[in-house]
């Protein structure tokens, strides 16, 4: 009999499931890929076959034109792979379509979280705790200094600043996939029903969210409007456009950025952010440690972030853990 869990192999370019000859979130093209969600560091083009939720597949299609070889799996659905491996997709609460993948083989259960959070998000179903033997967790915000405040507080900060400057606009830098739509949906939930202006690069992804039933209210393109139209309004753009020439067409913008990194003052200053909004689609330290407790796996494998501190926490709390050295992941999709 093979050693326990020898069938699952963390490699530098992804997690390899040997009996099924497939990879989870591989960072280079493979024959068969199981993809947790659409962020670029997890979902790449060029695989022979891609197994993911229909939403993730739609996102990948939008980004890489990868209709070929797409195999959709609904949340809660189990598919049987080669070599007696079952894969079940479970909501991760990270972005539209994001899933944890539960792998079962020879009576052993492994959960790969991809990216996740435990906070409520109007754009995707919430994270579910799945009992397992090995829990492979992300650790993007794996330091005790990270504590994301309630999103209502951050929305109030944003709306207060907007109200205080009726002649200006607030330009919110937010990642085009997930963060932007969540911020817009949360603004709507907070009662802000004014039109929201979009940088051209955000448009398609917002439409895709709407097609999947996420109501974003009235959206307008910056390119179609004059400076005066945008006074007193919120404009959403990718973070890269925040300090770009592009923003010169806006009416004296107040620069905001929605990101978990905004918790750290120097990070906000580096980006010339005047209004830091601590909003993240990743679990903060409290969520990470709570999740490890609740899942209560036999062993925790930590990837993709600040592994050292979470490893230390596991050690202090007598939980077995190891850090995986995966390459090709970055924290930009925060």
């Amino acid at each position, binding site marked *: 009999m093979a050693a326990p869990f020898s069938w699952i192999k963390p490699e530098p370019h992804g997690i390899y499931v040997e009996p099924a000859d497939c990879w989870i979130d591989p960072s280079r093209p493979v024959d068969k890929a199981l993809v947790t969600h659409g962020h670029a560091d997890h979902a790449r083009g060029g695989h022979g076959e891609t197994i993911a939720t229909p939403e993730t597949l739609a996102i990948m299609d939008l980004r890489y034109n990868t209709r070929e070889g797409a195999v959709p799996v609904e949340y809660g659905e189990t598919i049987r792979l080669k070599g007696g491996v079952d894969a079940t997709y479970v909501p991760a609460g990270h972005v539209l379509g994001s899933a944890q993948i539960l792998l079962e083989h020879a009576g052993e259960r492994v959960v790969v979280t991809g990216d996740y959070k435990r906070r409520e998000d109007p754009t995707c179903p919430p994270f579910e705790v799945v009992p397992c033997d090995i829990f492979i967790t992300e650790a993007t915000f794996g330091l005790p*200094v990270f504590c994301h405040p309630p999103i209502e507080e951050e929305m109030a900060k944003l709306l207060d600043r907007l109200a205080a400057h009726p002649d200006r606009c607030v330009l919110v830098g937010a990642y085009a996939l997930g963060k932007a739509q969540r911020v817009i949906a949360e603004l709507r939930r907070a009662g802000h029903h004014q039109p929201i202006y979009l940088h051209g690069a955000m448009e398609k992804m917002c439409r895709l969210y709407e097609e999947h039933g996420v109501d974003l209210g009235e959206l307008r393109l910056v390119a179609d409007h004059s400076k005066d139209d945008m006074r007193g309004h919120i404009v959403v753009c990718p973070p890269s456009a925040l300090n770009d020439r592009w923003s010169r067409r806006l009416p004296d913008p107040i620069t905001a950025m929605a990101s978990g990194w905004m918790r750290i003052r120097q990070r906000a200053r580096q980006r010339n952010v005047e209004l830091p909004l601590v909003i993240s689609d990743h679990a903060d330290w409290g969520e990470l440690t709570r999740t490890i407790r609740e899942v209560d796996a036999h062993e925790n494998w930590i990837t993709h972030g600040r592994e050292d501190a979470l490893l230390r926490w596991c050690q202090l709390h007598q939980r077995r853990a190891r850090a995986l050295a995966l390459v090709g992941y970055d924290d930009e999709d925060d």
Partner: protein
Amino acid sequence: MEEFAALIDALVYTRSRNEKLRLIAEYLRATPDPDRGWALAALSDGLDFPAVKSSTIRILLKDRVDPVLWTLSRDFVGDTAETASLLWPTPDTPPAPPSVSETVELLSAMNRKTVLEELPKLLDRLDSSGRYALLKLATGGMRIGVSSRLAKTAFAQAFDVRVDQVEEYWHGLAPPYAELFAWAAEGADPPDIDNLPTFRPFMLAHPLEETVVDLKDYAAEWKWDGIRVQLVRAGQGQNAETRLFSRSGDDISATFPELLEVLPMNAVLDGELLVRGSTQGGEAGGAASFNALQQRLGRKTVSKKMLAEYPAFVRLYDALLLEGEDLRELPWTERRGRLEALAPRLPASHFDISSIVEAADFEHLAEIREGSREDAIEGLMLKRKDSPYIAGRRVGYWYKWKRDPLLVDCVLMYAQRGSGKRSSFFSDYTFGCWDGDPDKGADLLPVGKAYSGFTDEELKKIDRHVRQNTINRFGPVRETEKTLVFEVAFDSVHESKRHKSGLAMRFPRIHRIRWDKPPHEADRIESLRALIAD
């Protein structure tokens, strides 16, 4: 403390000088005494609480957070106070937050023994922003891009008074500046500083550039290569006291004790601090090079040997106050007359008067100036004969006419680690000039980079400055507080698309480190642009 914490946070995230001024002014108007006075002190000169050190914070945190998690967090965040403010466990039912003055009172009462018990109680009363503001306040340097000058300008703006008046009173007062607020905000009589040896703001010169002046209206003086100082003596009899101030108003009396007992009358005198020698202006000039003076600068105590080897004296330019009389409104010619009349009463060992350069006309003066190169004199000063002594820089009154090489005063913006022998030092410097009036919200734009022109001693000092004034880290590069002025020498300057300033210098090198010069007095992009050769 919540409002103060909110102000600190807002200042951290604000780049525009105008906006910073507005934020501080608004706070000063809205906040009662003495809270606003303490806040102003914290923002300007900083408050000193000897019991609270960065190491105190580390000790407190290591008691509450696993040491490994503390170190990992501290390394990631890059700032001890901020890390502590984020990691400190907020109690379930925190007691009411303290006011700024209560905070100052409690911090002042702490000593090395009690601090480990008392500081936590204070931290428990604040949220994470409040804890950040508290720890920054308690450990001195706020390092949030607010200079003392900016804080004073904001004060002036808040109450619609003149900033040079604020400067003038400032040096005679102590936090929380009750008299200053009473005068500016309440309309009370101005603070009485006549009997105090306080600093009066300097009158400054514009670069001459293309201007041609008529020598009928202007007098010419050498621009000596030392540091501009103000010697002040005030008080009666036993209580009379003399102090020496640098250009920025820093009290440098302790560094030059030989000048503190030699002024026989009450006065405020403007002059150049020099060391005896023969480099500048030959034997007749009687001054050593700037390098010799540099041996004496920045020392808290001075050895007998130093005093003997590098004897300092003041070459006088002007008299602001003399035996109770304010001369500043008088024309330069009259003040000069009073200064010359004073000369015989001053000990020649420590004073002389900067001589007037006689020239037939402007062209003749230009020739004389060219000749000043051999004498290692910086150049000439041109002073309008009818100019009163006015704080700051007024167009048309005083000009400085420096000789070549081209020199500009720039502000250090970024420092990078060197290579080889210098790899442990921040030895490559990027500096900038202002893109407008720094007192009206201008920003610094980088104009060049240099990694030569200083001694190993100076390198160590700049390196220390960089480490203590880092506000940002980008890999091997540190962004520093914009506080240190370099006089940069260069051969020529050209248009360039590579820099945001649109200018590039040829062979820039650090000519001199102007520890004494406030950054808002550094040159503007337009002055540099005016030096484009073709």
